[in-house]
């Protein structure tokens, strides 16, 4: 693995690791690692640092829906221009171009079911190029971004073993 790959492997799972600790774990100089991280941010390889939150454990209500969208691609632009018109809405948290029975998968976040429904009805479905939508509400998250949300890792090993 190259140093870049090594860095990405570690920080993909643990973005809070300090540069000093990261450099030590990779057997590299701190300055080298810091420069690589900075360069990868500049090149858009490292896009953002997020915190994964299980909102269902807070008193804050969140509703998430996964919407399958069929669209008519525009001449010369393919799906990109319609995609742009959709992802600019702040309600859209993710947007993917798909192979198969539909074209775009839109993941929408809102405070209430009503709010999400309003977005689909008044913003998404009415776009010229949108042929149809199918909305699926997310009922429970078991695992997200490789992290199991329903149970925590517990060290059940004996404390001292040969």
């Amino acid at each position, binding site marked *: 693995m190259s140093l870049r790959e090594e860095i990405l*492997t570690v920080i993909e799972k643990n973005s809070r690791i300090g540069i000093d600790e990261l450099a030590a*774990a*990779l057997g590299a100089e701190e300055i080298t690692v810091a420069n690589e991280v900075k360069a990868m941010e500049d090149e858009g390889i490292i896009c953002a640092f997020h915190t994964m939150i299980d909102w269902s454990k807070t008193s804050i209500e969140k509703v998430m829906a996964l919407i399958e969208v069929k669209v008519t691609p525009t001449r010369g632009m393919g799906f990109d221009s319609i995609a742009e018109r959709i992802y600019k809405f702040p309600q859209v948290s993710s947007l993917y171009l798909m192979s198969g029975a539909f074209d775009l998968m839109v993941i929408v976040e809102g405070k209430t079911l009503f709010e999400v429904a309003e977005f689909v009805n008044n913003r998404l479905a009415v776009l010229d190029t949108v042929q149809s939508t199918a909305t699926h509400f997310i009922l429970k998250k078991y695992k997200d971004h490789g992290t199991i949300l329903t149970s925590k890792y517990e060290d059940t090993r004996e404390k001292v073993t040969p």
Partner: protein
Amino acid sequence: MRNPLSDKVVEIKPSGIRKFFDIVQDMDDVISLGVGEPDFDTPWHIRDVGIYSLEKGRTFYTSNSGLKELREEVAAYIKRSQGVTYDPIKQVFITVGGSEAIDLAMRAMLDPGDEVLIPQPSYVSYEPCAILADATPVIINLKEENEFRLTAAELKEHITDKTKLLVLPFPNNPTGAIMEKSDLEAIAEVIRRHDLFVLSDEIYAELTYKGVHTSIVSLPGMAERTILINGFSKAYAMTGWRLGYALGPEAIIQQMVKIHQFAIMCAPTTSQYAAVEALKNGDDDVAVMRAEYDRRRKYLLHEFAKMGIKCFEPYGAFYVFPNIKQFGLKSDDFALQLLEKERLAVVPGTAFGDCGEGFIRISYAYSLEDLKKALERLRHFIAGLSKE
């Protein structure tokens, strides 16, 4: 009433780790770096196959030697990793962990009066197993200046006309030492010349961080005088499945199987099915775990250097074996005080042989975050010692 016990068994010292374990058990808030098993769960696809085998009702004994399919996979693994061919029917058999294979190899090969060379520091079971097999253990004290590798000179020094077997425990628990090909070549020559046999415990073979592991069986003339022991515990994080294996000359393996069939019958069936999956499709899992261990290893060595703790660079297993002589405490006292003052558990080097005095074993089968927390406690402890 007569004494119900065997003198031979009573005279065996209890493991030094046991004593420590009992103290730790009664304490709260202990962070431990004292564990000799992986922190990873067994990869899910392997567990899934185990579960599926239960669902299908594969709940019977297997043949004494183990599932044929598993023995074939084991032989194929040794062929591709070491280039040595073993007959899966006659020269491979499946045991209840590497531990059983160690016990059986000694019992099958040794008679009263035979001497067994045991390099230390090393795993706790070799010496008792040799005694239980009525043989005489002869300890070779490995040295820090040799990175705890066994040298040809050390080997020669301990050979008598009674010497029959050499235990070769590399990559090593507790030191993390490895034997590279050139190291092995040097001792193989002595072994052949003195007509010795080898019990090569390679349970940590996959956890090597400098090149790939070389087994002594890959050297000329060595496969015919070596029992190679390995298993699934460390490479695939399968300690609780209790599954290992032994490969060697047919004559020795068949006698080992004989004891095994009377004492054990066969290794756990569920574990054997899971192990087939591990060998067939587990290489990527091993690579991911090895990379993670390697990062932790480097991190620890870096932090030790910052704290001024002397530690040779070990390239195997998941242990580091720092030298604590500068702090003026015996290994036992160091570990005990570290536990009492800072609630941090490590294992004193002396648990693995007298020559472990002046060292402690630190396991890195813990996440980087846990290691960081533990090192804070170690740093605090050492700062306290320097002030005294």
